[in-house]
Every structure is written in structure tokens, then in C-alpha cells.
């Protein structure tokens, strides 16, 4: 009797697994059919594919946080998938072990697994991969590495450092929300204030807000925090803090760090307040999103992978490439524009000034978080 029960339970589990598997495939098919002909929805490309020879040419090693963080990792991954799908190449993602507490060894292991799995180009996202990348790139000289949010590594011509001028994206977002009429702003950054990309976002945000305040002749307040979010994750504490800010008058918070967005959007939804998204257009995630400070992750990853396949690797290999407005690699989402008092035309004017170099944004953020701004009071929490 017991044996029969055990057998039945095993069967039930197998069936459950099968059922789950088939369920997940459905939505992908549906989106495929109603896709616009011109653009491919990256969501319609499956995250896992099986190549015929068991080798995966384009590999992606994630940063801390989820693959589908609707932000940094996801944007980078979409670039990999889009390029691979368009050119019929095999692709695979690798998440370093121990998730948010991944060590350099865990990241190296993920890169090694990718290289052993037949990768020709490995996209590594996040500045924290530097140490592991230095070791992996030396061990696998035949593989090329694209280091997103990174820098060139000395003596390694197979590493391309791609950095972004986040201060420009932050500036655009800060400028936009103040022009829209918000005067009490907040900034919640991830990485505990040690992540250069987040620091540049934050510094650009307050500069942009200040510039718009000067133009309108008003004074604004900014709450500026690096608390809760050292590992870019959502937490009840972060949600409580953000709810407290909204409760005490803050109108909009720049949620600058992967999954932290969930907590801040939840607090905003409680208080009918607003959020600025980061890295990719996050407006589909929540109705609270007003605009997003975007990096053209997907586009620049495709651009960099193309260099490999077009035989132009030496253009970026061994060098650091900084992408900004001049390369259309930063910006605000104009397709889902929701601002009423500041139009897309106004935005394009500002963006053009940034693009042709007449408007230069200071990227050297103060490491002690002390800002000297004429019309903005920054309260560091």
C-alpha cells in the first residue's frame, strides 16, 4: 500500500512539473502572433534555448539581482537575445552562484562555465565582475568579453569595457520631473553608495533638478539616501522608509537600483505618489512610473556583439568605451511619454544640446554626498 502511495506521489509531482512547463510556454507564443512586424519583442524570445551541438556562442553572466529585474540585467540580456535571434546564433545566460552574495570565485566559475560551454563572446554585466573578469579573460584568451558598466583591463585585448554616462540620463530625468512641476524629490540608490553607476545617476539627477529649478526660479528639496538596497533588493524596510517619505510630502522618488523598484513602487501605490524608473523604461511595471532614466543597454550590447561578428573587435577590445547622449545610449522613453507640462519637443531640445556638447554634465560625483547647488536643498539620509 505504501509503495503504491509513494508511486502515486511521484507521478503527481512529475505531472505537476510537466503542467508547469507547458503553461509557461503559452504566453510566449501568444505575444509572437500579435507582434508588430517591424520590431521584435525581446520577451517573445525564450530565455533558454537548446542548441544542436550543445554549445552556446553568446553568453551572458548576470550582475547581482534577478535576470528578470525589469532593469539592468534584463536590458542587457534582451540585447544578447535580440542579436542572437536576428543572426541565428545560440545563446545562454549564467547566474553566478550565491545570488546577491556572489563572490569573485562564483563569478569566475560562471564565466568559466560559459567559456567551457563554447562561448565566443561573453557579456558580463556590472562593475563588480572586474576581479573575476581579469582572471577569466587571462585564462580564456580565445574568448572575447564585453564588460558592461566596466572599464578596460590592463593588457587584456579580449575585454571591451563599456561604460555609460549615467549622469546624463539622471540629469534628463531630474530636469524633466522638476519642469513637470514636482518640487519635493527623493532619490533611493542601490549599492550602498559604492556603485559608480548609481552615484552618477544620483549626481546627475540632483544637477538636472537644480538646473530646472533655476530656470523656473523656484527652490526644491531632495531627499537622498543610500540606505536599504546595498544588494539591490526589495525589502519591507525600504518600503516603510519610502512610504514615510511620501507621507511627509515627497512627491516623486527616483528608484535607482534593480529590484528596489518593487518596494518603492509599492510605497508609491499606497500613497498615490510617483516613481522615476531606471536603466530601462519601467512604465509597464507600474502605473506610478512617470518617466525612466534609461541607458540604451539593449542597443549598445547588440552594437558591441556585432563588433565581434563583423570582425571589428579591435575597435573596442582592450579599450574603454563611454557611451552617452552622443551615441544615443542614454535618454528618457519618448514612446511612453506621460509628462504634460514638459513635452517631447522640449526634451529633444535639451537632449540635442547634450548631444552636440553645448550642455556638459559633471560626472565627478562627490563621494561624501555633499552637494553645493543653488536652488536645491539636498538632505542626505
Amino acid at each position, binding site marked *: 500500500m505504501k509503495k503504491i502511495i509513494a508511486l502515486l506521489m511521484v507521478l503527481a509531482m512529475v505531472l505537476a*512539473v510537466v503542467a*508547469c*512547463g507547458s*503553461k*509557461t510556454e503559452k*504566453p510566449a507564443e501568444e505575444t509572437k502572433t500579435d507582434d508588430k512586424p517591424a520590431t521584435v519583442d525581446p520577451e517573445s524570445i525564450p*530565455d*533558454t534555448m537548446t542548441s544542436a551541438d550543445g554549445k552556446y556562442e553568446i553568453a551572458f553572466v548576470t550582475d547581482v539581482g*534577478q*535576470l*528578470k529585474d525589469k532593469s539592468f540585467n534584463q536590458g542587457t540580456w534582451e540585447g544578447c537575445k535580440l542579436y542572437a535571434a536576428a543572426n541565428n546564433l545560440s545563446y545562454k545566460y549564467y547566474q553566478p552562484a550565491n*545570488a546577491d552574495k556572489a563572490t569573485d570565485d562564483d563569478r569566475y566559475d560562471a564565466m568559466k562555465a560559459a567559456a567551457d560551454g563554447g562561448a565566443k563572446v561573453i557579456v558580463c554585466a556590472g562593475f563588480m565582475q572586474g576581479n573575476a573578469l581579469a582572471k577569466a579573460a587571462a585564462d580564456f584568451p580565445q574568448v572575447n568579453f564585453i564588460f558592461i558598466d566596466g572599464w578596460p583591463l590592463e593588457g587584456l585585448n579580449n575585454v571591451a569595457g563599456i561604460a555609460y554616462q549615467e549622469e546624463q540620463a539622471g540629469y534628463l530625468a531630474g530636469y524633466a520631473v522638476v519642469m513637470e512641476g514636482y518640487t519635493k524629490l527623493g532619490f533611493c540608490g542601490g549599492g550602498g553608495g559604492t556603485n559608480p553607476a548609481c552615484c552618477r545617476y544620483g549626481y546627475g539627477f540632483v544637477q538636472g533638478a537644480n538646473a530646472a529649478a533655476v530656470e523656473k526660479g523656484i527652490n526644491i528639496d531632495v*531627499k537622498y*539616501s543610500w*540606505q*536599504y538596497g546595498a544588494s539591490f533588493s*526589495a*525589502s*519591507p*524596510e*525600504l*518600503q*516603510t*522608509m519610502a*512610504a*514615510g*517619505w511620501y*507621507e*511627509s510630502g515627497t512627491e516623486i522618488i527616483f528608484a535607482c537600483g534593480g*529590484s528596489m523598484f*518593487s*518596494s518603492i*513602487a*509599492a*510605497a508609491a*501605490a*499606497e*500613497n*498615490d505618489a510617483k516613481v522615476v524608473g531606471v536603466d530601462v523604461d519601467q512604465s509597464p511595471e*507600474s*502605473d*506610478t512610473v512617470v518617466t525612466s532614466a534609461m541607458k540604451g543597454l539593449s542597443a549598445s550590447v547588440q552594437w558591441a556583439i556585432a563588433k565581434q561578428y563583423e570582425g571589428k573587435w579591435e575597435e573596442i577590445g582592450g579599450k574603454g568605451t563611454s557611451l552617452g547622449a552622443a551615441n544615443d545610449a542614454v535618454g528618457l522613453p519618448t514612446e511612453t511619454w506621460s509628462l504634460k507640462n514638459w513635452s517631447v519637443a522640449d526634451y529633444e531640445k535639451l537632449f540635442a544640446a547634450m548631444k552636440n556638447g553645448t550642455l556638459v554634465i559633471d560626472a565627478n560625483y562627490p563621494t561624501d554626498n555633499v552637494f553645493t547647488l543653488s536652488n536645491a536643498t539636498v538632505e542626505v*539620509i
Partner: protein
Amino acid sequence: MSFLISKTLIYAIPLMIVALAGVFAERSGVINLALEGIMIFGAFVGALTINLMQKANTFNIVTIAGDMGANWGKLQLFLLLVMVITAAAGAVFSLLLAFAAINLKADQTIGGTALNMLSPALVCFFIRLIAQQSELRMFKGDAASWFMVKKTMFGFEKSQEIGFLGETFLNKVYLTTYICIILFILLSILLYKTRFGLRLRACGENPQAAASLGINVFKMRYSGVIISGALAGMGGFVYTLTTANCVANGDVAGFGFLALAVMIFGNWKPLSIAGAALLFGLFKCIAASYSTLDINGDGVALLLNLSKDPVWGKVLNPHMYRLIPYVISLLVLAFTSKKSRAPKAEGIPYDKGMR
């Protein structure tokens, strides 16, 4: 002030209900260390149910949410349904513990620990399968925009003042809070004022004596563990709904273990447990929101100013605020543990032959 009270409740309610879950198991004689594991499972089932039902548009739920003003009551019914489902899931999951501890007479501490390890692993496995990532979110919208009760739903304007009580208990609250409070009271009465409760407690003190009076100890212990599992599963869902935007990721931030501490802190008595949970929740809330906390309503965030003061700031800084809930728990336990009295027969498998 009303912000502090409502946020304190949000932290305290899951702790309170899960600590009560612990009481039911332990009062029947089974140590339930698996509270954390059951919470994780309940949170997962809740998030999954909401996600799937949103995706499939069961009961036209998405259409209903689109017209929030008129239909918020229906969404609350939906929420109630999900609570019932998570309670059932928790009860089923706790059967594993009950079977090991009662039928197989296994060591209850080890059984509970095993469940605590099994649950996050199992949940992460299923989330991977279902969502191809390590967390499962709502399919649409935010927890607050779907399920939070706001004063605008009762026909008030957003800027209209509805008095201190109204602001605290009718605005920006979750239905789950009140359900949990009512359940807490009802179950406390069940435990102390009914025949069933007396028998359950007897099985936790001296099961042989209870059996000699014709009480079925197996049945009583099973009931204790199942009630415990149902409450813990629901508590896990309440946790994820109110503090984690309905995201399941195989983690409830240690609330299950905190609830165990609260249960011991409260000396296995419901009233003390409620007090302990509120105290703990209050300090957790202060730690997270000190930067804007304005207790007396004069527009000054006292704790923030203190933390920036050159002298006070050395003692009262953000790190200290975050430490306080734990320090207080330690202190209170140190002073009250002498009086603490666990059920006598807890942790000992029932053996008919032992007298």
C-alpha cells in the same frame, strides 16, 4: 502618528498570527520550528494564486480592478479567497511535520528544521519553473493598488481629513490586518474557553492523563499542528502582501523565527504575544522610517535631527535604530525568561505505554 500606528500593525500582524500558530502546535505538544518554512510556502502559494488568476482573468478580476472605484469590495472578496487558499496550503504543508512528529514519533526539532530547509528549496524550484527567474511577482499592478483599502473608496476626497481614527484605521490599510486580529481573538477564545481548547492544552501538558480520560491524543495533536500550519501559511501570505509587494522569492526575512521568539517572549499566552509583536513591530517601524517620523505632529523629524546632532548622533544613529528591536527582545527575554513556562510535554512524542 497614524502613519506610525498603521505601519507598526503591518509589521506586527504577521508576527502575531504566526506566533499564535506556534502556540497552537506547542500547546498540543508538538514543537513547530517549521513556522518559517510554512510561511515561505504560504507566501509562494498566495503569490502564485494571484499571479495565475490575474493571468487567466478568473472572475473577470482584471476588468474589475480596472474600475476600482465601484468594485473594490469584490477585490477584497478575492483577497479573502486567496487567504483561505494559503491557509489550506499551509495546513497541507504542516501535515508533513504532523506525520513525522506524531505517527513516526520523529524528533520534532529535526523534523521542523528539515521543513525549513525543504520549503525555500522547493519554492525556488517551482518559481524557476514557472517564472524562469528567482522571484514570482504579481502578473499585473502592485499589491497596494489592487488590495489596499483607501479612504477614497468610502467616498471621501483625497485631501479630506477624516479624523485620527479614520486616518489610522480606514485609510491605507489592508483587510488582512483586521481578519488576522479577529482570527487572533476567536482562536484565543477557542484555546481557553472551549472544551476543544482545554483538551488540546491537556495533550501538551500531560498526554497520558488526557488519554486516560478518553481523549484521542493523536487527533488533538493533529488538530493543533493543522491549525498551526493554516495560520502560518496565511501569515506568510499576509507578510508578502503587506510588506513585499506580493513577491515570492523563497524568503520571508526571518519572520518565522522572529515569530518563534515572539511566542517565547509572550510566554505561550495570546495576550502577551500580541503585546510582544506590537512592541517588536513598533521598533522595527521606527528603525525603517526614522528619517520622516514626526511623532507629535510639529513637522520636525526628531529622530533624524538627533542622529545628525554631533553629540546625540554618536548614540542615536541609523545603525542603532536598526539594532533596537533586537536589543529590546534580548533584554526583555533576559528579564522574563525565569517566569517563562513552556508546555510540559512539548517535544516529547506521545507513547501510550509511558506513564
